[in-house]
């Protein structure tokens, strides 16, 4: 039974979130550190380099790492404050089991035995696939690889998926179709050489702050910047063309731009003829989107759209970037394809200054999606239904190919199977679905239906509060490993500290569980280095070939770009330089796109578009950043951004409470009345749970290919709410600041 074991406020008082403001040992601790550990930020896909200052097994401060070539010492506030999660009072230091009045600590043997027993019992009664696993894209790649192997060989379930399903999968699917490979095609240094930069659906300054500098350095050298976003974000503020697209209309807008390129013959005919397929079908598809039509659908000025298309078309070099703004849609894959079509039509890929990339959001958004924790994938970006891939991986793992389960369900589909009682048990690691999945009310009901739920995490997340067993795991800085950054650069995470108390490294937890489930012989790893060595072999010959990558080589080269098939191979910073793509025919594939409306368009009853996204101070579901005092203070609570025109209609002033209601639920938040958003759209940041969660409102509609949820658009109605109706923050009353 995965209902709460105690009243939620009691759980919060004990496990937080508490807000930590001061490092362990006080402000002076960092002046005399035991060790200085060069590593990387754990809080987004940029993976900024930084030096962690360690004293008495706690990270007590940081120093900028100016030599690291991606960020040269630059950091956002998450990076500056990340050390405050080390030694945090909320940190889980021992395994927990559900007890009549909350959680009680137990021994590792007891906790692991309970999990193994539950797995065996559920699978005996309901079949192997009735036990599912959810993992995370913030995990180092060794953990991600191990999670995939653990699910297939120890749990023997086909149902493992990861929270990158909420982030990168639309871009990944489009890239696989168009280029045959899923990776940003260029190092970020190519942005500096671009004459035109298209940014579609990326609040770059807040969600990937360092990328802002690349874009603006290019701008200072004369580049033109085009920004497509319903909100006038900091990167849009100084754009040459700002296209405030109505959410859910991106494909029409992008098709309209390609229409102009074709009409005005701003095309690279040689490239199209020699390097691509499918242009004629795309030409036909976009013929239905002359600028006036495209602009009408997208809710922008036609002349702005034409100007953007000409800036793109007339440039000699260019870089296209997009993020969740166009990807979180039921048409997410097609939106990405529409951007790729612009790149291919102008032939600007595979050369210096000619680039394309999705801006990955999670800490290991790239590496976490390559080595087998996706339901449809085996290590090396291999297709789990490809017989040759199954045979190769089976050989690496020492099993028969038939022992590898086939493709399973995606993250949201796993919950729908829980709802149907087909899945009865769940193991999660670093995934907080109660906050991060859409339609939170539905997800909460699903948790109640589970026979057994085990969470591996280092803080007790909103979802983990529902667990039967909580296994105290490890943070990024507590195991050595690799992650792959937004550029496709594989970097080295050095272990800075040991897990505190009885908390254990995630890899050890999975290996210990595998032992109890009878698969121990496949999980005898003594270190993450041994896991990496197996991963290198498992990825060998695959698309994401890591065979030539070692910790030492990463240190020597300040990162290694994959594919890197041999130990003496330098890595591949820029893809497609030889003009060949990773598709079967070696050509890039145009993908025709026809715009269609979102799953839930506005109507008379729900006349306003709701969209959601990040703020700079928080990361994902907030399970980490809402415990870090300075980040919490920067953005303590969510709010709803409303244009003054809409605010006037509602009779709401800045700061006043507004009730936002969708077909799935209703929340009350203070209004932030700003001219920087379309009047027909409201925005709510998504990092909070409980009654502050925007996902109470969002729709559980999925892209048919990528199965990404349509977070970026649903229909809502707004009304002024009573004073005092705004829910209080879910935070423990005695935060440490009161003790200092």
């Amino acid at each position: 039974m995965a209902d709460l074991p105690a009243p939620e406020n009691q759980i919060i008082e004990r496990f937080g979130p508490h807000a930590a403001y001061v490092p362990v040992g006080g402000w002076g601790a960092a002046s005399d550190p035991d060790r200085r550990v060069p590593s990387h930020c754990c809080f987004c896909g940029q993976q900024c380099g930084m030096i962690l200052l360690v004293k008495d097994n706690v990270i007590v401060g940081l120093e900028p790492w100016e030599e690291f070539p991606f960020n040269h010492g630059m950091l956002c506030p998450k990076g500056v404050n990340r050390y405050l999660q080390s030694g945090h009072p909320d940190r889980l230091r021992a395994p927990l089991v559900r007890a009549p009045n909350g959680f009680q600590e137990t021994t590792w043997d007891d906790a692991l035995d309970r999990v193994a027993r539950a797995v065996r019992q559920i699978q005996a009664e309901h079949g192997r696939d009735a036990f599912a696993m959810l993992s995370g894209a913030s995990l180092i790649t060794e953990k991600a690889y191990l999670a995939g192997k653990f699910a297939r060989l120890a749990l023997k379930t086909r149902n493992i998926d990861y929270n990158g399903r909420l982030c990168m999968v639309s871009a990944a699917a489009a890239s696989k179709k168009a280029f045959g490979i899923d990776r940003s095609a260029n190092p970020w240094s190519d942005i500096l050489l671009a004459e035109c930069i298209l940014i579609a659906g990326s609040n770059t300054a807040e969600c990937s702050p360092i990328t802002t500098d690349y874009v603006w350095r290019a701008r200072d050298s004369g580049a033109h910047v085009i920004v497509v976003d319903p909100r006038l974000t900091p990167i849009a503020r100084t754009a040459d063309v700002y296209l405030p697209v109505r959410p859910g209309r991106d494909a029409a807008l992008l098709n309209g731009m390609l229409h102009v390129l074709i009409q005005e013959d701003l095309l690279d005919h040689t490239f199209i003829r020699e390097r691509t397929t499918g242009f004629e079908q795309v030409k036909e598809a976009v013929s239905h989107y002359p600028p006036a039509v495209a602009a009408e659908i997208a809710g922008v000025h036609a002349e702005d759209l034409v100007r953007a298309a000409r800036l793109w078309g007339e440039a000699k070099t260019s870089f296209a970037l997009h993020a969740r703004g166009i990807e979180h849609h039921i048409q997410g894959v097609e939106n990405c394809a529409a951007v790729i079509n612009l790149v291919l039509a102008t032939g600007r890929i595979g050369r210096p200054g000619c680039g394309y990339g999705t801006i990955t959001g999670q800490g290991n958004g790239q590496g976490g999606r390559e080595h087998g924790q996706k339901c449809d994938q085996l290590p090396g970006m291999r297709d789990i239904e490809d017989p040759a891939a199954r045979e190769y991986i089976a050989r690496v793992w020492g099993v028969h190919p038939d022992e590898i389960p086939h493709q399973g369900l995606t993250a949201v589909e796993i919950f729908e199977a829980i709802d149907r009682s087909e899945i009865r048990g769940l193991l999660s690691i670093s995934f907080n679905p109660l906050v991060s999945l859409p339609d939170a009310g539905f997800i909460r009901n699903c948790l109640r239906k589970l026979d057994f739920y085990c969470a591996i995490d280092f803080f007790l997340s909103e979802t983990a509060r529902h667990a039967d067993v909580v296994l105290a795991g490890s943070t990024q800085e507590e195991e050595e490993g690799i992650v792959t950054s937004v550029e496709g650069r594989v970097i080295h995470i050095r272990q800075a500290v040991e897990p505190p108390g009885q908390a254990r490294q995630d890899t050890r937890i999975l290996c210990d569980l595998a032992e109890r489930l009878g698969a121990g012989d496949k999980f005898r790893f003594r270190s993450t280095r041994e896991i990496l060595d197996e991963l290198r072999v498992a990825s060998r010959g695959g698309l994401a070939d890591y065979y030539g990558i070692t910790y030492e080589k990463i240190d020597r080269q300040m990162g290694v770009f994959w594919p890197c098939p041999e130990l003496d191979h330098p890595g591949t910073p820029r893809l497609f330089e030889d003009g060949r793509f990773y598709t079967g025919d070696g050509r890039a594939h145009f993908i025709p796109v026809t715009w269609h409306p979102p799953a839930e368009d506005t109507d008379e009853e729900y006349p306003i578009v709701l969209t959601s996204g990040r703020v700079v101070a928080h990361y994902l579901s907030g399970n980490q950043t809402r415990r870090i005092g300075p980040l919490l203070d920067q953005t303590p609570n969510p709010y709803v951004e409303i244009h003054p025109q809409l605010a006037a209609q509602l009779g709401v002033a800045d700061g006043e409470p507004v009730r936002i209601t969708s077909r799935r639920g209703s929340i009350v938040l203070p209004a932030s009345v700003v001219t920087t958003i379309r009047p027909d759209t409201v925005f709510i940041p998504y990092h909070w749970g409980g009654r502050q969660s925007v996902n109470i409102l969002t729709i559980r509609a999925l892209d048919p290919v990528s199965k990404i949820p349509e977070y970026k658009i649903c229909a809502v109605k707004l009304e002024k709410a009573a004073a005092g109706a705004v829910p209080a923050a879910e935070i423990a009353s005695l935060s440490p600041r009161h003790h200092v």
Partner: protein
Amino acid sequence: MSEPLEFFIDPMRCIGCQACVSACRECGTHRGTSVIHLEVIDRMRTIQTTPMVCMHCVDPTCAEVCPADAIKQTPEGVVLSSLKPRCIGCENCVIACPFGVPKYDALPDQMMKCDQCYDRTSIGLRPWCATVCPSRALYFGPRSQVEAQRRGKPLNRFRFGNEVVETKVNIIVPEGVDEFVFDVAAHISEGMPHSVADLALAASAEDH
């Protein structure tokens, strides 16, 4: 000899992320307390924000008005926070600073302000805020690099009424601006009277 490193503020590049606010808290001379200013201009109408560090005036008004002689300047021209044993907490400096930089902090009972991370800059390191700033709105580096790579130009002369203030820190402004003038009278059309006394005179002349 290599080119000296200078401090540049480029308000147009500020993204309001507050990395500087947090980084300032890491400064070795006042760890735990952030003294930088991050101004939200008018959130309802714009997303524009701007960071403000101490401008480090060549002739610092804050030091000139300090009755306790608590504000010192280093040989490099860095204006320091008040000396704790001398500061009497009168806030003269807070009122006098033309840029609104010093803050009186009740807990240590002294004026605290940006000292350009003197512990770092005095040994060749860059200040915290200008190292981490992800959009280089705050930048510490050679002038030649700024002039070669940026739109706009660095400026370090400001006129408040008749008083000209020259600063160690530069603000990047659009091309064609040579001096920041903070006096409306200087901006209105020629031939108009300039001082309040002139205005009073002109008004009384009309009365008669």
